[in-house]
């Protein structure tokens, strides 16, 4: 099977964030970036499937120069090659513009399956995967916590997590776009050999023109969603702190949850 994995590079969850001067995004200057958590799980799932069924895994990512580091890591983990949507025109897009670009890049090659994470650790819109599926016209499943490609490779059976702890199993005709949850598997380590082999693997940088897209169809220029501000909500407001004996605090908390919040 030929599997595409879409990855986003996001700030390390341990990083301390600051709002950028223009208040439109966080200050990325001194941040460490990592592969988005659930995308890492998507990659592991893809590598495992490719090992079982044969075939190859190709990773896709959109963004500036720093994104190459995430792609290299994916190559070190076992992906065969990478496609980097590297042109500055791709950047600053909403999920629609980003999904359109990724779908075009995926469409330029033949894939049986597209895997990605269910949600990004920074913006967290959880919509790029659905947009990709929409542009490709393929079936799509979100919040997937179990995945099995059926014999004959014509369909995949996936387990999805729904509200209130209920799970469902659905079958999707392939090709399909599947968005996995963090925790679906145990991601492997790269090995030292893998890191050295990654040096010799291809990272193809592509532009909108390479994908048959005009500059106005991608990135900020094509976005229908505009960020007006990012900010840290004021902390402490509406918080009530119980002090004293823990057992007593717990009793007060349950009382409040029952009578005031009415969640119990």
């Amino acid at each position, binding site marked *: 099977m030929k599997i595409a994995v879409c990855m986003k590079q996001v700030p390390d969850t341990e990083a301390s964030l600051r709002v950028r001067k223009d208040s439109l995004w966080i200050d990325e200057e001194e941040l460490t970036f990592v592969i988005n958590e659930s995308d890492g799980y998507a990659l592991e799932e893809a590598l495992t499937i490719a090992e079982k069924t044969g075939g190859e895994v190709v990773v896709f990512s959109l963004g500036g120069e720093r994104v190459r580091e995430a792609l290299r890591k994916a190559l070190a983990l076992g992906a065969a090659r990478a496609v980097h949507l590297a042109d500055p025109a791709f950047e600053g897009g909403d999920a629609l513009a980003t999904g359109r670009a990724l779908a075009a890049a995926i469409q330029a090659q033949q894939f049986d399956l597209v895997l990605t994470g269910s949600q990004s650790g920074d913006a967290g819109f959880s919509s790029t995967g659905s947009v990709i599926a929409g542009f490709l016209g393929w079936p799509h499943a979100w919040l997937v916590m179990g995945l099995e490609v059926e014999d004959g490779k014509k369909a995949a059976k996936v387990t999805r997590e729904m509200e209130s702890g209920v799970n469902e199993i659905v079958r999707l005709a392939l090709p399909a776009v599947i968005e996995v949850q963090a925790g679906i598997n145990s991601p492997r380590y790269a*090995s*030292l050999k893998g890191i*050295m082999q990654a040096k010799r693997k291809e990272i193809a940088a592509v532009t909108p023109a390479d994908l048959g897209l005009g500059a106005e169809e991608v990135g900020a220029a094509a976005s229908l969603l505009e960020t007006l501000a990012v900010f840290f909500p004021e902390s402490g407001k509406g918080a009530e702190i119980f002090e004293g004996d823990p057992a007593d605090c717990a009793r007060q908390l349950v009382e409040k949850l029952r009578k005031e919040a009415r969640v119990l």
Partner: protein
Amino acid sequence: MTVAEVQHADLETLDFGLSGEQRAVQELAREFAAKEIDPLVDEIDEAQRFPKEIFAKAGELGFLGVLVPEEYGGSGLGYVDYVLIISEISQVDPSVGLSVAAHNSLCTNHILKFGSEDQRQRWLPDLATGRKLGAWSLTEPNAGSDAAGTRTRAVRSGDGWILNGSKTFTTHGSVGDVCVVLAVTDPEGAKHHNISAFVLERGMDGFRPGKKENKLGTRASDTAEVVMEDCLVPDANRLGEEGEGFIQALRILDGGRISIAALGIGTAIGALKTATRYAKLREQFGKPIARFQAIQFHLAEMATKCAAAEILTLAAAAAMDGGRPVTRIAAEAKLLAGEVAVFCAERGVQIHGGYGFIKDYRAEKYYRDCKICTIGEGTSEIQRLVIARQLFKENR
């Protein structure tokens, strides 16, 4: 609190213009140490247990054949990568760092550097992947810094040699599978040209581990005596030229010093990170002690010394990779890094105050672990002698 919890973003180690691959290697070692080693640190230290499970995993990832070319199953990396790996691992546990270092740069490296093609094919693939663990036996009860005073004898017998004697302080003396042993082959021969190196394997008749040492620090790294009693070793197990074992050992120790310097850096940075984290959390007089200048000055001094030791060690590693002579710079790096490890570990305990004196925090462990760095693979005093000797040679 553990090192793994420390945000590396707020205390980045030195960027020595590392390549993307080197940073990836460093990141892998950091991730491995945080996930696989950190949870076991306290238990294996207290019990003096050699953590075989960590080494099995380390072998799979290539950490046990860092310098071994890919054709022998190794990772084919250089000394700069190697320093980064040992340092990252030692930040979390100097015991594991020491064992990984000894396996790579002593036993495995001796076979790689001085073994014949047959010998390399025979032992390196298992060592480089961690299927077998390496030990290296030079020191004897009466021959420590004076390695030329070796008493262990190898006497020719038919196609082989009969070895008799004992070695002390062998890293992996009890758990090792393959052991390089230095023995006198020509008692009448010229000084420094009368010792040969042999590869002994676990299970050979007359070869056994002796007493396992009960150590101050790096307690999870196995250190034991090994004993040879009429042990018959085939001549095919002799490494390199007969009589050149001592000279080989000196070359191996040049590389070994870089790895112990890396151990020192890791220990020092581990102590620094632990103390920095503690200083931010511990409150006295209504504020974190990190806000007091007395504590800040300790930390600043520790950080500066770590940076200096790290730069010097990476420079020594780069010289080694570049094929330049390293005897002096490796000794300088080992001397500085060892002393810095002891300095930082001591300050780390001081910053922790009473909590540095008990085992609830790792500060106490760094304080015990650091001391090997000024003793093992040549004491600080020997390093000074080596440096001075080179200095005079260079300025003849």
